[in-house]
């Protein structure tokens, strides 16, 4: 009877084993927000991701979309000649989903990411911060965003995001703290799904009175599936001027608790 268990144990172990992600180079960038609204959908945003090679030699680059518009579109490979500029096709899941991009290369590359309006040509593009993968929160780290507003002038939202490689570690367990000024409003321990998640109206989502300025603190506790966290989590906040439609990223600060 014991011998009958051997194949089962082997099967369980083999199924559990997974090859770790091997980056193609030492330079790894994370673009926390990439959005796309299909034409004719009534939504206006599109993202332009411009990739350039300032070095004197050609550079292979691989970008990972998370989540992509289709299973076959998860990765995008390109080899940039010296001085060449190209763009990464925005083949990501359409709005209201948001996606992220994770880019690897063997040498430093230039990355410029702009979210543009299809309707308003006078609206300045929203420049998306390009992070280094080490910037992401690891288990024990805390991300802080201040100044989420929802009043006569501004509306704000925030988003949990992670790169493609984290698909095996998600969902994450996080601790979320909301404050206004120095006043504590709530503390929640919750899981977040395995794809970027927008909290479009934080006041409604957390049952808080509208109009109150909010500061957000998110601590990554770890993988809720008991797996290794490969890269980690990022949270960004966006504040939009209601009158002009102009948006800006709020600063996300990282407090390292993992070291």
């Amino acid at each position, binding site marked *: 009877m014991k011998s009958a268990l051997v194949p089962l144990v082997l099967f369980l172990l083999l*199924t559990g084993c997974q090859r770790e992600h091997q980056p193609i180079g030492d330079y790894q960038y994370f673009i926390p927000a990439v959005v796309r609204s299909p034409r004719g959908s009534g939504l206006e945003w599109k993202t332009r991701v411009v990739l350039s090679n300032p070095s004197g030699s050609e550079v292979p680059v691989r970008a990972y979309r998370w*989540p*992509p518009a289709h299973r076959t579109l998860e990765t995008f490979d390109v080899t940039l000649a010296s001085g060449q500029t190209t763009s990464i096709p925005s083949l990501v899941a359409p709005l209201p989903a948001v996606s992220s991009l994770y880019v690897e290369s063997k040498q430093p590359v230039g990355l410029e990411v702009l979210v543009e309006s299809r309707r308003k040509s006078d609206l300045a593009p929203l420049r998306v911060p390009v992070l280094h993968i080490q910037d992401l929160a690891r288990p024990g780290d805390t991300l802080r965003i201040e100044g989420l507003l929802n009043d006569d002038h501004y509306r704000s939202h925030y988003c949990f995001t992670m790169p493609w490689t984290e698909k095996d570690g998600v*969902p994450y367990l996080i601790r979320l703290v909301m404050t206004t000024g120095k006043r504590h409003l709530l503390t929640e321990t919750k899981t977040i799904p395995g794809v970027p998640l927008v909290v479009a109206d934080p006041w409604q989502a957390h049952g808080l009175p509208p109009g109150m300025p909010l500061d957000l603190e998110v601590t990554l506790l770890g993988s809720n*599936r008991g797996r290794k966290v490969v890269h980690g989590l990022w949270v960004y906040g966006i504040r939009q001027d209601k009158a002009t439609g102009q948006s800006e990223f709020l600063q996300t600060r990282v407090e390292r608790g993992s070291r």
Partner: protein
Amino acid sequence: MRRFRYPILLGLGWLVWIWAVALISEQVWPWMMGPHNWSYDVSRRATALTRWDSGWYVAIVESGYQNPPTRVAEQTNHAFFPLYPLIVRAIVKATKMETSVAGNIVSALALLGTLPLLAQFTRRNFGEDEVKPALWLFLLFPTSFFFASVYTESLVLFLSLLAVVALQEKKPVVSAAGAYLAGLTRISGILLAPYLFLLSLEESGRDELKKPRTWIKALVAALPPLAGFGTFCLYYWKRFGDPFLFFTAQHNWADAPKTVWDGPRLIWEAVVTDITTGRILTKSPARTLEGFFFVLFIGLSLYLIVKKRFSHGAYSGMTTGIILASGTLESTGRYVLPAFPAFVALSRLHTRPILWALILTGCAAAQVFYVFVFVHWLWAG
């Protein structure tokens, strides 16, 4: 040990068959995939036999129970029992295996435990000649693929059969353990309470019915499934402050407010509409088959009662009848799966070889069809 070999080998062969059908189905006509609202993260890694309600179990395994619902039509995972996701979670944590694979393995192992028990149950209650036909019918029944899917059907059946067989073999502790865990697995596990009560009385014999001890013994046999469900309610009470959260979640699952008493009326209205508009033939064969399964299993339950198999007939009838509370017949094919005595009753048709061959062939063909539409997100079951 030799007696276990046939059911287990048959079960292993069936698992190979059903997975082959599912994996081939997934590759055939991928453009036919129906819409669903699973996140890309989950849908890309879920196995072919992880669809529809499997997603709720995967979510409970990975994230636990969510915040309680606040309104009607807010569907939450409190409508799902905890034992199956708990076992899957333990395997995921121990092996780092993908959640849906772990769910499929738990279901498969529970099925492999179920088949020898079903053989034993059939042998004891209906005779050796009925064992093989019952096993074949059970595995080839059109909706039996749920036994390999990320669903609780195989686990609840394993625990229910364990409770029943152990009771008949005078192993009350094993019976109580199986029944208690069945009450933590699925709503049909609770129906073991009246089943074990009646079965205990039957096992005691007519002459013993006048003794209070016989009735106390039957009551004690009936308590564990209720205790299992009670434990579930206590957990909800402690965690969310509402011991009846399961019922609240079930109630809020519907699009509009309704009670369990509205269920039969809604089903009747749907049946009348389908018949009078001709949709019974044209709208969806799977939907029509659900009505057929309901009538068939109610008929089989009555047959068992007429044959004086009261406890088996009552349990099969209750397991089938519970669908009436839901307000739709659309999951009948899955709800009848724990009604194992009814399967044995139906398998008695094996004495008519041509009819029996037609039944098994038809069932196998329907099973392939069901797996295809399930894998393609076209039918929820």
